[in-house]
């Protein structure tokens, strides 16, 4: 009798725990609310992370094995002499409303991207990659490319959309789908005014263990960390560096790395006459004291071990195979050398201020406004250093909308310099940043930088058939950019997430974050 009672008690504890796990809500802070739940209109990293919960990408890199794999494709074959791939969709996968996933959904997604009536920069980019898609059978789709890619599956990292949810392939941003999406991902999502709630959805290929997730807009980082410490939330996706010490000091929290391959930069507008000469840009590079900037805005003291913030000399993180280690970083300023370069470039100093053709130079520096949370006061610190270097300056914070509309499209001609951050996944393709803007290339070239030699190196990368060829091209690019300085490269900054220890198995995938969310467990 006693044995039965004990067994019953144990069982009820187990069941209760399971019930708690599946019925509990995991709350976390994100940097902001997503701009849209439709992956076709993703504009930020927040969007990418949210979409990873709700949708499946056709192919993705496994965060643990690093292999390119798929949850929705059973197998694939090359077709049409390498210009197409035949995909065999797995059977039994259902959309969150119960409809079956099929080849028609894959082709619908590609056709939507190709449809000129879909006003999406993401779709626009994909039009250079895909030329069409045919449904051969219920579970077989033939995806056609515009050219032969040596790694075609790398091009299939887009999210699959449900055909039955749209009236046509011309997808609109204000469609109801943008707020109440249907995916095949581990969670269904619904966006409210203050947050997004996600409900677990079991599927043939997903078995999430946490019943509900709740995303909330972060706001003040200090408030976020305090709330986390008080167990008001269970996680923060990106903890700004100044607050990481508070998180580390707590036994109830753990700081986890989030591989985002982010690096910070100051882009320089070479269309300005006084910035055309590369000696001026090199002088600006020497005026910046990165060690001082890092200490004051990130909080990393000189000589600190295991710093989350490493200086860089080119457009890659130091751990990247594309980073050219022969190019040194510039950790400290060298005003003497900077002044020599400025004088050689024809600038004159009057009353401690640099002049170009008799006119005093006032540098207009902008920075994407939300970055101030990660690196408080960075803009004014850069301004102070430029002032110490003899330049007047005006500082501007640029809204996200203006950043997307003007800066990224090369229309920020009013600024002399802009401070920003790029983030990359495992594929670090910097071509859009430095290629001459034309015909869809150089889509993210901030100040319309143009250099035929750089274009040639980028083309070399694009046409590389092996990883070695790609690496060589980018090594040369790094060297060239270090000389030309369209950007003053600052640092790579590790991104860290903070989670309470009650959250277990929380593997954070590079870039997309939630790829392995099925393994996450939460027992409050």
């Amino acid at each position, binding site marked *: 009798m006693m044995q039965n009672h004990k067994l019953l008690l144990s069982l009820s504890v187990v069941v209760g725990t399971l019930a708690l796990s599946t019925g509990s809500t995991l709350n976390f802070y994100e940097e902001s609310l997503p701009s849209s739940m439709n992956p076709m209109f993703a504009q930020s990293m927040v969007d990418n992370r949210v979409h990873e919960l709700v949708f499946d990408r056709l192919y993705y890199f496994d965060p643990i094995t690093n292999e390119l794999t798929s949850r929705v494709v059973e197998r694939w074959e090359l077709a049409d002499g390498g210009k197409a791939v035949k995909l065999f969709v797995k059977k039994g996968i259902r959309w969150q409303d119960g409809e079956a996933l099929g080849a028609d959904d894959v082709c619908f997604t590609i056709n939507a991207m190709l449809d000129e009536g879909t006003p999406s920069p993401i779709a626009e980019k994909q039009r250079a990659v895909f030329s069409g898609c045919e449904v051969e059978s219920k579970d077989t789709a033939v995806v056609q490319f515009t050219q032969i890619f040596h790694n075609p599956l790398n091009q299939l990292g887009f999210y699959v959309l449900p055909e039955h949810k749209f009236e046509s392939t011309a997808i609109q941003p204000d469609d109801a789908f943008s707020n109440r999406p249907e995916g095949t991902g581990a969670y269904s999502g619904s966006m409210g005014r203050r947050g997004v709630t996600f409900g677990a959805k079991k599927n043939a290929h997903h078995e999430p263990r946490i019943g509900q997730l709740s995303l909330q807009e972060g706001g003040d980082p200090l408030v976020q960390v305090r709330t986390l410490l008080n167990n008001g939330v269970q996680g923060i996706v990106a903890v700004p560096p100044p607050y990481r010490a508070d998180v580390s000091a707590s036994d109830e929290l753990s700081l986890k790395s989030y591989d985002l391959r982010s690096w910070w930069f100051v882009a320089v507008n070479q269309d300005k006459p006084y910035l055309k000469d590369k000696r001026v840009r090199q002088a600006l590079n020497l005026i910046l004291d990165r060690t001082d900037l890092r200490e004051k805005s990130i909080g990393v003291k000189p000589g600190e071990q295991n710093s989350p913030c490493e200086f860089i000399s080119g457009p890659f993180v130091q751990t990247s195979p594309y980073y050219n280690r022969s190019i040194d970083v510039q950790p400290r300023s060298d005003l003497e050398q900077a002044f020599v370069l400025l004088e050689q470039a024809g600038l004159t100093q009057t009353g401690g201020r640099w002049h170009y053709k008799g006119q005093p130079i006032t540098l207009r520096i902008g920075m994407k*406004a939300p970055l101030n949370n990660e690196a*408080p006061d960075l803009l*004014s610190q850069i301004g*102070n250093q430029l002032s110490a270097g003899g330049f007047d300056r005006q500082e*501007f914070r640029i809204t996200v909308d203006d950043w997307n509309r003007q800066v990224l499209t090369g229309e920020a001609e*009013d600024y002399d310099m802009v401070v920003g951050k790029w983030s990359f996944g495992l594929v670090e393709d910097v071509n859009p940043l430095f290629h001459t803007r034309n015909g869809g290339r150089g889509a993210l070239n901030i100040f319309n930088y143009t250099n035929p030699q750089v274009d040639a190196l980028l083309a070399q990368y694009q046409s590389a058939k092996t990883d070695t060829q790609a690496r060589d091209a980018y090594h040369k690019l790094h060297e060239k950019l270090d000389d030309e300085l369209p950007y003053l490269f600052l640092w790579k900054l590790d991104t860290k997430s903070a989670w309470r220890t009650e959250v277990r198995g929380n593997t954070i995938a590079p870039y997309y974050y939630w790829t392995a969310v099925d393994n996450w467990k939460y027992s409050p």
Partner: protein
Amino acid sequence: MSRWYWTGLGLAAMGCVLIPGFFAPEHLSPSDLSMAYSSPGAAPPFGTDSMGRPLLEYALQGSRVIALPSIVAGLVVMFFAVIGGLIACTGSHRLEAITRAFGELLGALPRMVVVLIVALLMPPEDRSLYPIAISWALLAAPGAMDEASAVAARLGGARFVEALRAHGFSRFRIYLWHIVGLNLRPVVARQGMETLMQVVFLEIALSYLALQDTQPSFTHGDSEMSWADLLYMGYQAFLEVPTWHAMQLGIGLVALVALATVCVGRAVRPR
């Protein structure tokens, strides 16, 4: 207490708020991390921020941001209040009806949104409090006109003018001295001061909202600080950051503006 006492106190308070702005530095001092979060005792007169920069500079820059625009807004409202009072003395029902209708329309506009849109219209390099202050003044003018016309109506409106004309005074003297100078003065001055105060508080509110939403400032260049930065810093004191001195300074400045308004109101009250 005598009127002169209130006048002196009001002017002193206003002077403390507005004049220092003319001596504000263009940019904040370079950082000195060794002085971070210093109290007023350690870094007089007002202590420092998280970068060791004196809060005095915040106060000075904030004063520069609000000084002239708030005065201009006050003058705009005073002007309209005078117009409203004078219209009530003309005896023209049509003019009164038109003014009233226009005032109702303006008064019904959601002020914060109009002000925000005006703020967003300005190019980043031209961001200042002026357009916001003038917009606010225009939106507040109908209320001032109403009150001034009520005062004029209590005088007797057109009949008051007629009576004084019968005494041999010129229209110019009647309107400017008897009506505006002697009778409308209290309401006009009070409305002007209240608008000045409202514009200062509006600047603080808009700057605070911009800080909260990580937006560029609506009212000043991003290299300048506003009094809202002090309040925002002070808010962090509730989260155990040692910034109580910032909160005290921010609230102290707000109180100074309120004091100036009260004193001027008392100084110009009707006998």
